[in-house]
């Protein structure tokens, strides 16, 4: 039986949506724009989206939106191939942007996970869990675990119209205050909102849960003050480090040095994101 593929060829932008190792949550977040998804995919020429498409043409893209982190050799090949085949590469979600929880493996003891390791075929051999920009250049980041679903669809709509997405750098606290939430730090919770890039509408704090920093550090974060606030609330250094590293550990290489008494690194700013962080 031959499969009907009704996506038309046209002057529209050639777009691909892909996932490597991850949880598919970011790709689902795109699909979960229930009122818009069927129309928005028609604004572009969706050449590939293997999660929900069987016919996928993986070359000559204008834009590839990629979810997931590099965790095995297959991922690495995919990332390199997609970079070669696209004009614009977009990291979608925390795994792609920062490595997310799987990359926290760098900061846990080997004895914690070595019982889970076993020998595998060469093509699925592990590589260090890393975000995409450790391997290839990334043009835009849509951060968050997962990103707000409207952010993803707005990004696609903007790109389809040829609009350059604008950066967003304010911390979560800005939206949190606007939403009228009680400050969780004031009630002794280890909230990382002050150092974390917003754009999420402070969704976790709206639900009563402290920010774990999934969207990554702001460019001008005051890490010293954040650490002091957490210590003042009785959290020990191990807890503080573990919490800060859960989603974005690889993007906080200065953390250990900052936490040592008497140490003052010259630069606290992260190189991560640059001006290219996107908020819809």
């Amino acid at each position, binding site marked *: 039986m031959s499969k009907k593929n009704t*996506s038309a060829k046209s002057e529209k932008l050639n777009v691909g949506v892909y996932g490597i190792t991850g*949880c598919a949550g970011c790709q689902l977040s795109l699909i979960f724009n229930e009122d818009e998804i069927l129309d928005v995919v028609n604004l572009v020429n969706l050449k590939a989206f293997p999660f929900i498409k*069987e016919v996928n043409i993986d070359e000559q893209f204008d834009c590839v939106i990629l979810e997931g982190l590099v965790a095995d050799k297959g991922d690495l090949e995919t990332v390199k191939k997609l970079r070669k085949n696209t004009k614009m590469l977009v990291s979608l979600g925390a795994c792609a942007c920062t490595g997310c929880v799987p990359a926290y493996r760098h900061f846990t003891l080997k004895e914690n*996970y070595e019982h889970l390791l076993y020998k595998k075929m060469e093509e699925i051999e592990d590589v260090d869990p890393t975000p995409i920009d450790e391997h290839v250049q990334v043009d835009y980041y849509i951060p968050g675990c997962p990103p707000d679903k409207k952010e993803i669809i707005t990004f696609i709509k903007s790109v389809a119209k040829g609009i350059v997405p604008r950066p967003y750098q304010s911390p979560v606290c800005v939206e949190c205050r606007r939403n009228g939430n009680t400050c969780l730090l004031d009630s002794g919770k280890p909230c990382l909102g002050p150092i974390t890039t917003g754009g999420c509408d402070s969704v976790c704090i709206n639900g009563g849960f402290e920010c774990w920093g999934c969207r990554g550090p702001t460019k001008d974060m005051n890490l010293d003050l954040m650490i002091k606030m957490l210590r003042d609330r009785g959290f020990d250094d191990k807890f503080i480090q573990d919490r800060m590293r859960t989603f974005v550990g690889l993007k906080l290489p200065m953390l250990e040095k900052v936490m040592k008494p008497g140490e003052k690194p010259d630069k606290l700013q992260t190189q991560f994101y640059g001006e290219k962080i996107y908020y819809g």
Partner: protein
Amino acid sequence: MGKTITLNHITKIEGHAKLELGIDKGKVKTCKLSAVEGSRYFEGLVRGRKYYEAHEMTSRICGVCSCAHVIAAISAIENALGYNPTEQTKTLRVLMTLGERIRSHATHLYFLALPDYVGYESALAMAPKYKPQLKNALNLMKVGNAVIKTLAARDLHPVSATIGGWLKLPTQQQVDEMRVQLESIRKDAREACKLFSSLKYPDFESKGEWFSLVDEKEYAVLDGKFSSKDNSFEKSEYRKFISEYHELYSSANFVVRENHRYTVGALSRLNNSHKQLSVNAKKMLKESGLKLPSYNPYHNVIAQAIDMMHSLDHAIEICKNLKIVPEEVQKIQPRSGTGVGAVEVPRGTLWHEYTLDDLGTITNANIITPTAQNLLNMQEDIREFVPSVLKKKKEDIIMDIEKLIRSYDPCFSCSAHFLEVKWV
């Protein structure tokens, strides 16, 4: 002459899987179904972390069933701490799990399974001709997501459910609005049952054993014994019965019940507990013509539609009776111990187990997903099914195999897929 079928990247599933099939003189010589994605080692990552951090981390195992992992992790940790949640907390957890079943089944049925049966490469390609059907799907997904978002702030990786209670309770008004929204999709759920009952499924009988939680009180969600027609055991005893092993060719473990293959999912739930279905779901079951017990894994697709109808009715019933009372999150004194949590999630029974020390630090964790439990059965089903269709054209054989894999709604946890077929 022998031939080989290799499906390198199977599309329209959650995750990255590969099938290698070697056939000689009408007999299947090799059949290897494997997850070929990067390993993430979640069970190792939570070691050394606090008991109240596990659910936020393990939620990231899976997007579409993130509620499932949150609830399973919380249940297991509370079990280790010897804490019994309040009735209201349990009810909200059940409601969230049902909301997830609705959105997950709707997504799988229409976006991943249906295109195969109507001859399209994707739901997107179907859109011009199948707009009303896709509208049914999107309505179901939207309300399922809304239930989760109302209860737990986010529809993926929900945050308000926690150890000892609920961080932010929904208001009574929100519960009432949820009921209205849920009632508005009854017709969509009925249409789904009708549509998936009308499709033609290949004939096949799996030799696996059909397991699900079975609860005397109701069609199981959070409670019950893990049971099949012939066997039944308590959650806490799972290690005595269930064991895992790995193969060089797969990054997901295989799971067996005392060396036997078994399967979990919507059809298992129906086979074991169909007498407890809601009135509407029973009616849909009768109209579907599906005879239970059914051992045909392809029927899992119809079973999901009926399971979705039931989940919707159950959720509406809960909203009708739910009177929100203010409750603080209970402070629980950490203590050492091991706890097990098992939940009937969209794809079957999900297991979480944690061991804590005196200070509430996690010292060990074990997680067994529905797909891991189904993996061996899927592989063996393919081995046994293929000889019956060898006379068909090669693309039809591949289609039947892909339909079989997709009917299990496997969740290999995400990756790039690109269908590549090698036929020697």
